[in-house]
């Protein structure tokens, strides 16, 4: 008879054999106007239900408070949403007011988010710009960074259950928790000009990345211009520097908000701001130049 020790050793060997390839479970579902995917180790698959319900409940909370505020500006949002709105002011500062949590006052004139799309005339835009600067008759929309915040909260739910490795991806705004057994999480940044290709692959561990682009939500104006969903709150027009901006940051909210904020300012301004904030940035300019700023290349696949 083999000794007890030998038996235990054999059992351990079997466990090790299975254990060395940790399999992951991914669930994909529709939320926040996009496809969300949650990936966790197979053995922790139960947490997906909790993370998913966290996402749907926070999405509903933001939607409800935004709608109520837009009907009645004296409405007081719940504390978590009020804080979220307040944090938007940091992006307004970075961009000298080109970013605004009230940018929907402009974008809805163009028909965003659902259509029918149209080009508003200058007098309509002037009224909207005036309203934004005075804070009256405005439409609140936290779309630029609420998704990131909700991803962070889903990650918090997963972390609090003691899970060390996971990924939550809301249509490209994502957080990579921990690392896979053999390597970091790898994220490809889509080529705005060819959806089957990518312009960079980054390795992430306890980091978020988010991308804003001019190519996902856009329509063609009668004069042939493509008009997309990001607007400068000081001009009422689309910014015209980039096809896409990606940002790596410690939270998805920051990556999400900064990718929109940086879209609104020129490359030298981005360079100065990302150095201060220590957030790596990948710019794909309208001239087709790829600019890696503030340490982006350190995250690229080796």
């Amino acid at each position, binding site marked *: 008879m*083999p000794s007890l020790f030998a038996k235990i050793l054999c059992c351990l*060997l079997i466990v090790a054999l299975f254990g060395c390839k940790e399999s992951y479970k991914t669930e*994909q*579902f529709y939320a926040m106007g996009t496809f969300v995917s949650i990936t966790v180790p197979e053995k922790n698959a139960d947490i997906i239900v909790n993370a998913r319900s966290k996402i749907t409940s926070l999405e509903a909370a933001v939607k409800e408070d935004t709608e109520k505020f837009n009907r009645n500006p004296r409405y007081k949002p719940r504390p978590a949403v009020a804080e979220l709105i307040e944090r938007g002011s940091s992006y307004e500062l970075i961009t000298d007011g080109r970013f605004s949590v009230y940018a929907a006052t402009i974008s809805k004139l163009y028909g965003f988010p659902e259509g029918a799309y149209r080009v508003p005339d200058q007098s309509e835009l002037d009224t909207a710009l005036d309203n934004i600067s005075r804070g009256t008759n405005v439409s609140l929309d936290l779309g630029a960074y609420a998704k990131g915040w909700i991803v962070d909260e889903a990650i918090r739910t997963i972390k609090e259950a003691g899970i060390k490795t996971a990924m939550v991806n809301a249509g490209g705004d994502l957080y990579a928790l921990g690392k896979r057994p053999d390597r970091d999480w*790898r*994220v490809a*940044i889509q080529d705005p000009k060819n959806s089957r290709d990518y312009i960079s692959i980054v390795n992430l561990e306890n980091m978020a990345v988010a991308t804003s682009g001019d190519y996902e939500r856009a329509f063609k104006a009668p004069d042939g211009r493509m008009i997309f969903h990001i607007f400068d709150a000081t001009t009422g027009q689309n910014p015209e520097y980039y096809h*896409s901006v990606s940002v790596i940051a410690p939270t998805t909210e920051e990556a999400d908000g900064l990718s929109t904020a940086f879209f609104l300012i020129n490359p030298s301004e981005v360079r100065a701001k990302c150095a201060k904030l220590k957030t790596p940035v990948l710019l794909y300019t309208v001239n087709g130049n790829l600019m890696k700023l503030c340490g982006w290349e350190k995250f690229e696949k080796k």
Partner: protein
Amino acid sequence: MKRSKLDILIISALIAASLFYMLNVSGGEKRLYLIDTKKKEEIKLKDANISLDNGHVIIQVTAEGARFLESDCPNKVCIKQGWVKNCGDTAVCVPKHLALVMECKEQDYDAISQ
């Protein structure tokens, strides 16, 4: 040393485990999925047209992959995204809450930021 039944059992278990492991990691195997609000369903890679949403969306499937062939959604983003053929390729029709995804055992990346 004499072999006991337990030894044989353990050895068989180990061989089975190794085989299982080896089969499991034989990378490159592609699986096409169609995702909607309720479920994620695997689609066989063979020539077919799948009609969804009362015929308002048509997905073309071949041995290589699939694409959104027709959709009455306003921006036709899903059609412009083209063929879903390689590992990690996706095409998403947000207004219809539909997505095509090609998943593989081993791929270059875990997610796409777009």
